[in-house]
């Protein structure tokens, strides 16, 4: 091609060679052995129990939005764990490599990670946490909840939904394989021009970074289109825009951002690829390139992306607070307007990521003011949540604790964000760990909302509640870890510690780094608590079974259908009369009214095409990374041919007859009646508490 490759290249394997496998690395080689053994055990167990057919038929080829959502969440949790391990490694290196007398092992002068390896770890940590943990987790929840909340049987495009999942899975696989084959990018998760150019980063790390991100962007764009079209077109009769559940509004605003911003990322990455693969000069230091063009293009996507991940989290909090305050959400209209305002302002603030570019006082002032504007709609949201809880009948279960924790973190992160919005302050703390602590506070808002949602919606998806004791244990450990890691980090930022130090020169910072290391150990305990939580909950699931309305105080439509949700969601689609339809029906005692007769419904067939296309996009990404041109052409052609073949075949779908539906529904009702008998009656209390209107709980003993 047009660029001179350092190192070897062969037509058959491209840049791939045995020397690219880091079998001599004392960290990666044992990890690789562990992964291989783990994989053999898992695959062996699946074979031993004969679950391959089940896995293929029920999960890998499914187009059911709930199963796809669950798989999104599994990918997100696995990647969250991987990103957490990266964080643990970063903290351990920084607590170890302090001062010139600190020891070094594994070929590192100080600490245990060489600078090149450390660079890969923090780059992978950032990319994974934002794009392969937070994003799939949120997309997963939107996938599961949005169609049920609007009273639809599936997404607008079920097959496209499966395709989006498998492309995201391909991206996750690509970044995971970079651990064992070649290197990952070492220049930070958002990279810098011109260090990502071929002459400064000759390895495949940046190429892995390009194609991983490109695949995530593609998958998220497809998912965004799907969710938008679903919300616009698939709402149940009677559900006008004013009756839309608030999480649906949050998803809508988030996906407007996704749809419009991800193309900017795709172009930015495409131009980097043009530089690295074709010898173009978009971002080179000479030859007429423009370095800051890259930074601008990246953050034109990057900042809207931040709100793309925070808005669904706000939506989740807006569902949890009313349910456990037994009050309708305070200020529904203002909440909707605030979400839309945040989505709009998200486009006007990207330059605050690099005030130090030197664009001059007028440009910096404009972006500073625009950034501070974000505080207005966000403040509206915070007050709305506070007023929702005000004089409500609060239940402090684990889901509620996570939501309240998110609220406190939002205050801390938001206030430091306002500080950073002032260019005069920003120049002082630019690229310090103060900034790192700020955006971790914000991203932890999302993590808190996600864990709250896992607890809140788990019974809806699986039919039983998670264990409260271990969920609360996990919450307190996690919160202690958050405080222990990030309070010292804010302080170190003020003391001038810059980010991404693989060697900390100032021994005076050792005590703070020690506290942070202790904090990450506490975080590790919370991860253990999460595993125990899953184990205990699955072990005791028979005791914790729930009916349709798992919490007894739920408000929106997903709590009307059975738990776990049947694959057709609603046997008969509900007609929507009120904003909080379930709470309204419960209040008026008509929540047990069943449909009189069942009609035939039409459902889409499963398809194996989506997972095959996902596999092919992985092959394409891998071939592009290693410049195996024949494989690029073969996989691209295979993708095109497969898409054309599928378009000829189409999907006629299948029919579930009304009689069949009635049989399944009656069985579900019988199961629910058994659960209600086995539990004692729900607590009952009055309808009006203080001055706040509170809908009555459903008293199943009547």
């Amino acid at each position, binding site marked *: 091609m047009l660029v001179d490759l350092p190192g070897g290249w062969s037509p058959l394997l491209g840049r791939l060679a045995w020397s690219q496998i880091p079998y001599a690395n004392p960290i990666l080689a044992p990890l690789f052995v562990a992964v291989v053994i783990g994989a053999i055990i898992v695959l062996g167990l699946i074979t031993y129990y004969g679950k391959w057919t089940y896995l293929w038929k029920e999960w890998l080829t499914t187009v059911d939005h709930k199963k796809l959502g669950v798989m999104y969440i599994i990918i997100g949790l696995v990647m969250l764990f991987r990103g957490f391990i990266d964080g643990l490694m970063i903290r351990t290196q920084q607590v170890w490599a302090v001062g010139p007398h600190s020891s070094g092992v594994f070929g590192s002068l100080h600490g245990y990670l060489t600078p090149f390896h450390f660079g890969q770890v923090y780059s992978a940590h950032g990319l994974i946490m934002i794009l392969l943990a937070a994003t799939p987790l949120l997309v997963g929840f939107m996938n599961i909840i949005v169609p049920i909340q609007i009273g639809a049987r599936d997404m607008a495009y079920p097959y496209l939904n499966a395709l989006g999942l498998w492309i995201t899975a391909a991206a996750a696989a690509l970044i995971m394989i970079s651990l064992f084959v070649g290197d990952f990018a070492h220049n930070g998760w958002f990279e810098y021009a011109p260090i990502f150019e071929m002459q400064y980063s000759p390895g495949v790390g940046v190429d892995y970074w390009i194609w991983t991100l490109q695949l995530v962007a593609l998958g998220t764009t497809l998912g965004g289109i799907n969710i938008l079209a679903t919300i616009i077109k698939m709402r149940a009769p009677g559900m006008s825009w004013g009756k839309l559940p608030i999480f649906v509004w949050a998803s809508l605003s988030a996906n407007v951002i996704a749809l419009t911003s991800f193309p900017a990322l795709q172009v930015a990455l495409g131009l980097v690829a043009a530089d690295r693969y074709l010898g173009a000069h978009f971002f080179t230091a000479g030859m007429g390139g423009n370095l800051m063009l890259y930074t601008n293009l990246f953050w034109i996507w990057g900042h809207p992306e931040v709100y793309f991940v925070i808005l669904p989290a706000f939506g989740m909090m807006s569902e949890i607070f009313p349910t456990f305050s037994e009050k309708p959400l305070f200020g529904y209209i203002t909440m909707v307007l605030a979400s839309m305002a945040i989505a709009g302002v998200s486009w006007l603030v990207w330059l605050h990521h690099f005030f130090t570019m030197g664009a001059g006082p007028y440009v910096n002032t404009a972006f500073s003011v625009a950034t501070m504007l974000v505080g207005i709609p966000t403040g509206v949201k915070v007050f709305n949540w506070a007023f929702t809880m005000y004089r409500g009948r609060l239940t402090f279960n684990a889901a509620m604790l996570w939501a309240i924790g998110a609220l406190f973190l939002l205050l801390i992160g938001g206030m430091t964000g306002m500080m950073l919005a002032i260019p005069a302050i920003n120049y002082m703390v630019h690229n310090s760990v103060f900034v790192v602590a700020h955006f971790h506070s914000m991203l932890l808002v999302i993590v808190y909302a996600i864990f709250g949602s896992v607890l809140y919606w788990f019974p809806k998806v699986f039919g039983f509640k998670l264990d409260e004791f271990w969920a609360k244990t996990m919450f307190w450990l996690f919160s202690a870890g958050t405080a222990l890691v990030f309070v010292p980090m804010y302080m170190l930022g003020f003391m001038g510690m810059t980010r991404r130090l693989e060697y900390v020169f100032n021994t005076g910072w050792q005590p703070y780094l020690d506290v942070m290391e202790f904090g990450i150990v506490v975080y590790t305990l919370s991860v253990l608590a999460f595993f125990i939580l899953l184990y205990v909950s699955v072990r005791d699931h028979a005791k914790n079974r729930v009916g349709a309305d798992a919490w007894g105080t739920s408000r929106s439509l997903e709590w009307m259908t059975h738990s776990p949700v049947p694959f057709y969601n609603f046997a008969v689609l509900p007609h929507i009369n*009120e904003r909080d339809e379930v709470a309204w029906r419960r209040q008026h005692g008509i929540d047990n009214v069943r449909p009189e007769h069942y009609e035939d419904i039409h459902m889409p067939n499963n398809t194996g095409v989506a997972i095959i296309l996902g596999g092919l996009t992985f092959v394409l990404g891998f071939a592009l990374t290693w410049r195996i041109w024949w494989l690029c052409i073969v996989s691209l052609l295979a993708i095109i041919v497969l898409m054309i073949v599928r378009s000829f075949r189409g999907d006629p779908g299948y029919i579930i007859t009304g009689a069949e539906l009635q049989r399944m529904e009656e069985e579900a009702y019988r199961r629910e009646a058994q659960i209600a008998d086995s539990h004692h009656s729900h607590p009952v209390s009055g309808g009006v508490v203080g001055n706040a209107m509170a809908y009555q709980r459903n008293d199943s003993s009547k």
Partner: protein
Amino acid sequence: MSSHASTVDPKKAELWDTHHHSHDVISTRTLGYFLYLLSDGMLFATLFAAYGVLSYQHSYFGGPTPAEFVKPWYTFAQTIALFLSVLAYGFGMNALKHKNKSGLINGMLAAFVLGVVFLVLDIHDMSHLYSMGITLASSGGMSAFMVLTQVHATHIFFGLIWILVMMAQVMTKGFTEETVGRLLTLRMFWHLQAVIWVFVYIFVYLWGYIS
């Protein structure tokens, strides 16, 4: 604000969807495709922004600039070919309204041939530039010029494949809900590429020629 005023009488309220309304497949698909085209528009907007930043005198680094090699009449011929292609597709869609299969096929065939003319002119232009030693590696400005125009040409290329596929589908399957929906989305795609070409022609070719 603490409670939402109830306006529906629960005793008479309609609780289930008894009218058995079904979703309009074609309108759902065209909406989704329209959303995709919005993202495609954003993609070109970003490329235009990059071109704007990289079209200063210093962006060409003393190398060739569009003013030296752009031939406005040549690209005008491309413009006419692409517009006539969209027009032919429009005639084909008019035939669809009258359930006239051969009229549709003829329109699409004409659209295909004119699209191929556009693409051949583009490839000829690029190979001519290559023979003069002008590539996207010449300078930052030429990188922006080449990538913007060739990303558009790539869209045309995939549009042409799509036209062929749709001709085959109409001939084998006739006018089904699926094929008609796809004909409509293809029309949106084809039209948008012509609209984007207007911007490419004006801001890249004409502006490059005069500056």
